[in-house]
């Protein structure tokens, strides 16, 4: 067991969590609808068939959700650009292509960046957070993101959710500091997933609880508390994803944490977002916590991580739930979920046969254009245009080689024209797209994301979101670009 007295490392400096961001997909899969589909063969799933879990849209994956969470953390930060990016997940789309590099370019982070993917277990996020908080010097953006695809009719299908959380860690005026942490590494295989496969394989829950959680977690938590110099009964928020139900109270009791401090594991709101979940729950806790409160974060998986954090005066908690938790649209079509996750193959017709081979050389040339949504602003007349071009598009200007990079991802925009196209192939028809006009007068023909036909009208305000543009199943490649998401009223 490895313990660390965070106070020795962190207390002298102002290193800590500077900002948080979290993202859940708009869609919330109705668990009753899932269970109804399986009632004929797995009637026992009914017991879990309450509420909703978050569900990635067809064009979302661990990368795109990480980008959205990262954008939110950076927007909240008002800090210098990070020098390091860590992307934690067990479901990154590429085994060899730095997923964090896609995220970095979508966030327009400086190219002089240390970036890494980490995975391996559901502790990927919590372990990375310990390392980030223990590290010294420089801003580090840690994003944990997960889109798991459990086997149909498994309990995991109902338990898991898709989502991402981002924490900006570094020196400054943190909202929370690490007081101490502890980690245990053990090849306790409660579940596993072979590389390249979807769906976990797991062992009996009673064994996982009695021999795993019950025996392995409490000593680590005690070590972390000891390292932090904090009594268990002083913990104000106990953050532990609900690996199995009722485990939180069991651990709390064993280590002496007050049961009323157990943080809602968000089962009813989004489900367990895997490696992202401790960070997602922490993000929510930090949004609600006041100053001087202690937070215990525990994550189990091939061992255990435990962190004890303390909020600073910058923590100005609010009783209201953060907006990212409130948004959502219930999806009751289980077949749509199966199609989105590639678990059934529908007849999409010949238009879906289009070869989506990507010219990797062209993709690199256009990397900042495509990932960074970078257009050009003419130094002569100020016209913003996408993509940047050698000659200014303004007919009254036409200056050559005057354009500076100009990022459109965070610019206000609205719909100029639109359609809902039932002819073009899209994994979620109709294909909605149209001319988008930015407040700076730039104009781009774009796809619309996360909306229904009724949400589209000329003049509707838009937010830009980073999404999968096209998938190339023949070669296992996927390309990303930005889409325009109509601003919907909360709760829609």
């Amino acid at each position: 067991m490895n313990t660390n007295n965070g106070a020795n490392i962190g207390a002298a400096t102002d290193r800590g969590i500077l900002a948080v961001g979290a993202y859940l997909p708009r869609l919330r899969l109705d668990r009753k609808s899932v269970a109804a589909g399986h009632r004929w063969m797995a009637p026992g799933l009914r017991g879990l068939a309450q509420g909703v879990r978050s569900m990635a849209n067809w064009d979302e994956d661990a990368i795109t959700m990480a980008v959205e969470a990262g954008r939110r953390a950076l927007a909240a930060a008002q800090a210098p650009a990070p020098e390091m990016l860590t992307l934690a997940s067990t479901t990154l789309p590429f085994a060899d292509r730095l997923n964090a590099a896609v995220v970095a370019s979508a966030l327009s982070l400086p190219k002089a960046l240390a970036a890494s993917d980490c995975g391996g277990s559901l502790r990927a996020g919590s372990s990375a957070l310990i390392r980030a908080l223990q590290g010294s010097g420089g801003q580090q953006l840690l994003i944990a993101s997960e889109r798991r695809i459990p086997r149909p009719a498994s309990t995991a299908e109902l338990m898991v959710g898709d989502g991402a959380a981002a924490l900006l860690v570094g020196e400054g005026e943190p909202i929370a500091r690490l007081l101490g942490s502890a980690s245990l590494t053990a090849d306790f295989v409660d579940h596993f997933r072979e590389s390249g496969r979807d769906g976990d394989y797991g062992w009996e829950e009673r064994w996982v609880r009695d021999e795993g959680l019950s025996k392995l977690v409490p000593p680590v938590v005690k070590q972390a508390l000891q390292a932090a110099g904090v009594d268990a009964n002083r913990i104000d928020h106990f953050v532990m994803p609900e690996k199995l139900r009722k485990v939180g109270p069991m651990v709390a009791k064993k280590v002496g944490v007050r049961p009323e401090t157990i943080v809602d594991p968000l089962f009813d709101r989004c489900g367990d977002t895997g490696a992202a979940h401790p960070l997602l729950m922490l993000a929510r806790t930090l949004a609600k916590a006041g100053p001087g409160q202690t937070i215990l974060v525990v994550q189990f998986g091939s061992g255990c991580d435990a962190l004890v954090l303390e909020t600073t005066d910058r923590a100005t908690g609010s009783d209201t739930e953060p907006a990212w938790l409130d948004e959502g649209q219930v999806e009751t079509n289980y077949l749509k979920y199966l199609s989105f996750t590639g678990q059934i193959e529908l007849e999409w017709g010949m238009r879906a046969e289009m070869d989506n081979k990507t010219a990797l050389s062209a993709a690199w040339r256009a990397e900042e254009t495509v990932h960074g949504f970078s257009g050009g602003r003419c130094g002569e007349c100020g016209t913003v245009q996408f993509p940047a071009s050698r000659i200014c598009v303004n007919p009254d200007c036409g200056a050559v080689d005057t354009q500076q990079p100009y990022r459109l991802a965070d610019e206000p925009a609205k719909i100029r024209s639109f359609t809902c196209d039932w002819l073009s192939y899209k994994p979620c028809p109709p294909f909605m797209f149209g001319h988008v006009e930015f407040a700076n007068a730039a104009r781009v023909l774009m796809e619309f994301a996360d909306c229904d036909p009724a949400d589209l009208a000329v003049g509707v305000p838009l937010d830009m979101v980073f999404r999968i543009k096209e998938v190339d199943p023949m070669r296992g490649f996927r390309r990303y670009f930005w889409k325009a998401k109509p601003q919907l009223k909360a709760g829609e």
Partner: protein
Amino acid sequence: MANGIRDRVAIVGMGCSRFGERWSDNAEDLMLEALSEALTDAGIERNKIEAAWLGVCLEENNVGKTAGPLAQGLRLPYIAVTRVENACATGTEALRGAVYAVASGAYDIALALGVEKLKDTGYGGLPVRTRGVVADLWLPNASAPGAFAQLASAYQAKYGVSYDDLKQAMAHVSVKSHDNAALNPKAHLRNKITIDDVLKAPTVAEPLGLYDCSGVSDGAACAIVTTPEIARELGKRDIVTVKSLQLAVSNGEEAQFSNWDGASVRTAEVAAAKAYREAGIADPREALDLIEVHDCFSITELVLMENLGLSDPGRAPFDILEGRYDRNGKIPCQVDGGLKCFGHPIGASGLRMVYEVYQQILGRAGERQLPKADIGLTQNLGGHPHQNVCAISIIGRLGA
């Protein structure tokens, strides 16, 4: 200052295959069908053709690349043949090549021929476009109806036209073309339809329904051009000349700059203004006896009436509903059925439009003959409203 093309080149022969689902015919069959008619019309032998332009948009659809398919299919005797492609404006582009070649004095007799085998895709509608390179990284993979449907939403917003009024006017466009095509034996879709049929049809790309979309057809059309002098030597008395040929190509302003309303076809405005000037037309509303426009979708025809200067801005839906562009209206539009019903074999469409104007001027249009047809306009559009090529020709009687 250039003098333009007006009256410098005559059309002495035209041909057009029957358009439709020509399952048993290949491109060679269609080309020969069109050329045979044109040669008979011109009264010349095939070996009198000195140079040719072939218009094919989608060569991968069983036609083939280069000018070879024309030279080989028609066994042209080692003459200069050029293949041109400018999306759906390809047919008019081929005509431009042949007409300019004659006007330059380089050749006495030239051929423009467009052909397309669209029905070899395995499904209805235009084929999925082939991939480019960079633009695919960000541009939506839009279908043609999806791209043209954009006009409708922007048009409604700009002019405050209600959805129902616009749908009614669009339906009128399609019903009219079906009525006209019923009189045209070469047309692909000759059935009559009702406004109700249009309004109740399945949606393709909101607000375009099935009957708002043009037919997808196989076909070929061609023109033999020469000088007016040679036309006379060939015994032609009614000489039909080219009054104007204009082409305007988007430079990215519509797609990327903020000065386009999204409710119009900018290139058509530019090309029309130049075409009227070249043809010496002061008031197109009075001068034009008929028009054939690129009605790939009903909404396209609707906005084009404004962009060609024939309806006032915001008035096209009402002019259409009042019958201004009907067969018996002030400016008959698509008297042959248009792309909508004659069909749209892409490379042939521009030449098919000219074919109809030519037949009308010569009084050979049979049941669909207009009482007066001295001068007509064709407009051929390739691409999408925000990024396109627009070709306009004005064809008329020599001296008109």
